[in-house]
């Protein structure tokens, strides 16, 4: 199995195209081969429209590829049903979004608890509290997202992403909506948590500094991998 090969994520010849009513088929991803070793970090950079978000969605099993395969922790995603993929996501995947995507009707703590509750492990409340303390929001447990700043919201999102100790975390421009200073804090936390829990990171970003922190940098262009840089540790 691939996970035994040491890869948490692997794509083989992944393609995605969209049918448009009048124009010919729009190929957004074209033969992407990607391998992310367990516990490693990977950043994806490239101009807007080059297919980064699409790739992320496919890797996380949020969408169906037009061709090729995605292996997540050794599981071939195309073999799984939508609900199986959902439970795989719950167990193995964390998400951080550009626009935070906290559930507006839940408090910070409740937001962090959702992934645990989904699997019936609501007993691990302390863990959620602890994580929120780690991201510096120990005193904001009962606040709703509207009562938090963007940076604070993103930190809650980070806590939520890590609470299940996922094998891999996907982040789509996690600092895109934040100022420089706040961005730095978020990035620091991301890598800290990665080092600590062994969660692999896949980060889409425009921030070159951030990109270069990763062990592997993928440069996309026109739906293809234009360049792959592996930093030796």
């Amino acid at each position, binding site marked *: 199995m691939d996970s035994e090969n040491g890869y948490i994520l692997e794509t083989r010849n992944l393609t995605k195209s969209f049918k448009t009513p009048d124009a010919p088929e729009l190929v957004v991803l074209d033969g992407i081969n990607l391998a992310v070793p367990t516990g490693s970090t990977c950043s994806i950079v490239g101009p807007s429209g080059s297919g980064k978000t699409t790739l992320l969605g496919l890797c996380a099993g*949020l969408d169906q590829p037009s061709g090729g395969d995605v292996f997540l922790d050794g599981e071939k995603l195309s073999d799984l049903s939508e609900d199986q993929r959902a*439970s795989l996501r719950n167990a193995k995947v964390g*998400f951080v979004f550009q626009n935070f995507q*906290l559930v507006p*009707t839940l408090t910070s703590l409740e937001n962090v608890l959702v992934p645990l509750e989904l699997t019936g492990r609501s007993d691990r409340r302390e863990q959620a509290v602890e994580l929120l303390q780690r991201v510096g929001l120990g005193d904001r447990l009962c606040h709703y997202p509207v009562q938090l700043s963007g940076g604070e919201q993103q930190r809650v999102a980070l806590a939520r992403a890590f609470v299940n100790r996922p094998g891999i975390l996907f982040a789509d421009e996690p600092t895109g909506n934040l100022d420089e200073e706040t961005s730095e804090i978020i990035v620091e936390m991301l890598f800290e948590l990665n080092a600590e829990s062994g969660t692999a990171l896949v980060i889409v970003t425009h921030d070159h500094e951030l990109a270069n922190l990763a062990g592997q940098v993928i440069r996309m262009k026109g739906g293809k991998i234009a360049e792959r840089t592996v930093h030796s540790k």
Partner: protein
Amino acid sequence: MKFFRELLQRWTWQMAWRDTRRDRKRLLLFSLSIIFGTAALVSTGSLRENLRVAIEDQARELLGADLMLSSRRPLSDEALAKFSEIAGERIDETSFMTMLRFVDAEDESRLVQVRAIGKGFPFYGDVVTEPAEAWGDSVAGKGIVLEQSLMDQFDAKPGDFVRIGELNTQILGYLVKAPPRPSAFAAFAPSAYLSPTLLETTELLGSRSLARYRSFFKTPREIDVDEQILTKELKTFLVTEGIQHTSIEERKKRLGRILDNVYSFLSLIGFMALILGGIGIAGAIHVHILSRIGTVATLRCIGCSTNQVFSIFLVQAVLLGVFGSILGTGLGIAVQKAIPVFLSEVFPFEFEAKTSWLSVAASAGISLLLCVSFALFPLIRVRRISPLEALRSGIQPDKVGFRDVLFRSVVAVLVVTLVLSGLLLSPEKMPWLGLAFVGGLGVAIGILTLIAKGISHAARRYRSGFPYTIRQGIANLHRPRNQTLAFTVSIGLGVFLIVTMLATSKMLSSQFSPETKENESNLFLIDVQPDQKQEVKGLIESMDMKVIGDAPMISMRLTHIKGTPVSEIQADEKTRVPGWIVRRDFRSTYRAALVETEELVEGEWIPRVDEADFEKPVPVSIEEGIAKDLQVEVGDELGMDVQGLPLTLSITSIRKVDWDHQGLNFFLVFPEGLLEEAPGFHILTTNAGDSAQSGALQREAAIQFPNVTVFDMSLILKTVEDIVERAGYVVRFMSLYTVGAGIMILVGTILSGQRDRTEESVLLRTLGASREQIRSILLTEYIALGLFAAITGGILSIAATWGLAKFAFKVEFFTHLWPVAGAIVLTSLLCAAFGMILSRGVANHPPLEVLRGGK
């Protein structure tokens, strides 16, 4: 089945509850539509029940009892014992026709029907005499009570003496409100009332073979006379004993189809209001789901399964439905309780405000079921929200179309619940009405959908030189996320249902209004000899009244049906021919043409025969209903005894008669040239505006034509009119509910588009649009949507009203252009007004909020 497991998870309910946090007030507001719907259903159910009781009470008053037995012989002890045991209290009556001599008026005499009734009659209703104590005194055997017209005719006063056979007694007074007559047309002679002991003194009984013996019974309320007492077995027994029976069921028929219509209409209103509530709730859930797309997408990313998210929102819909139906039931009961307190003037019939808990529970159950079924539609979308939405906002949930299995199953669920509730809520007499209504609804939805597609299409093509704001407003009708379909269908349906209901209620009310009564006969002049006819007509006209009906009348008895003697038919237990038809006197007429209140439905109308040949079967036209009862068709033969002459009748045509109009309607109509020589008389009818006019005519007729009897039907007609008028109030009152539910639909529909409108407007404002411009864009869109929806709904409602008039209520259809036009204007204005009020924030919102994500 995974789905049901999710539905039972604690977490699902917890999330469902937490998710309402920020919107509880709005959700409560939304539940108003289902509250109105349920309240309408609950209170119409109870009103219907109360109306039924009121009608039953009136019917009891028309008979004075629950059951009447009547025979040519004194009722046998066996029969009396049998019935007294099961039917409760009993009062006996003996009556016969005899001459009444006015001692003080030089012994002049007049044929009267003498009625000797025991103490306590009638069981229902009361008797009023002038002077008041006259009735009690007559029951106590102190004298006789007469009809006023008879006394006027002989210039008699209370205290004068009269003779009947050997009895010499004094007149105690005259009747103001007479006791119920066992048969309105049985005796065309004035009645005289005395006690059974006085009757003995006349010594006429033994020699009188024409006496009638009746027993009236008062049964406990909970007993259904027709179901429980008049069993097959007892009926057979009565036939062998030669006893006829009458229950209030037959009396109720006098109240006519008008009340049936009111009753059916009430059922329909409840159902309509509930459907409106369902549409409202569907709209509300739709709005709610739209505001939750981000949440759903995020939850799905985190690993929530589609079943889990679906369960969360289904739980919310169920909670909303439970809440709405409980509050609605409460409101319905409150309204029903409040009616007698606050509106006793409006609803003058005795309103017991009895709450039928079974019907309340049924209403609440049906409304919850319909609410959830309607809510399933917007809920399908939850399953279609892609987790990708969290990465890339603005993705539209997949279009849910008919090709989708889920969509089809939800449609199936809704159709099944609608059909079931339609069946449950249909009036007994028209079990198909609910179904037809659901079918009509389906057709209306189809047409509205097509119209909506057409509007979008036209808006895309539309180019004009109008200012930018108007072009922009119209463009909103076809752009992505347009509201055209949702608006046209929901508002169109709302207008359709409400206008249909208002127009139908108007149509039914016109049945109740007095104008149409002017040409209905309430005075019947019987026994007019052929040579008196012209003079009597002259008399009527000289008193400023119109002669409405004029017909010769010959009475005859049925002897054979299709060759079988009626005695055999009566003896046959299996026969389904009702006994009363076999026993009745057929008062028939002859004429060359059909009258206004009838219509030929089958066969050939024969105006006259040139040569009367009674050896051969003679042609006759028969009324539809009685033909059904006798189980005869065109071509069948009936045997009749026409005053001693046996005749064979051949049915040549069948007529449909409108019995709602009190007039001269006959079961059998012969062609001219047959019965002119038969002993008979004429019957003339007219309409008296009030009792004074009626009294004057009765007096004059009595003086000038002593053999003519004037029969005043206005009392019975008045009872009917009273009930019908009250029913009209109920109908109008109930209509208010549907309007309430309709407004909620409008609010819901506008709110569902508000998010997109806000975003767009804020963007336009950052680009430099003024508030004025934004308002006029919105105004254009809302007015256009309201106008198209209302016009379509209005036109559909004309079709539906026509269908209801023709097939369900059988009333004359007339287009009510005013309600339709009014609804169109009003709906557009309301759309514009609510649109402006609800998007007031849009123009005022600081653009920043939306740029921050608007969360």
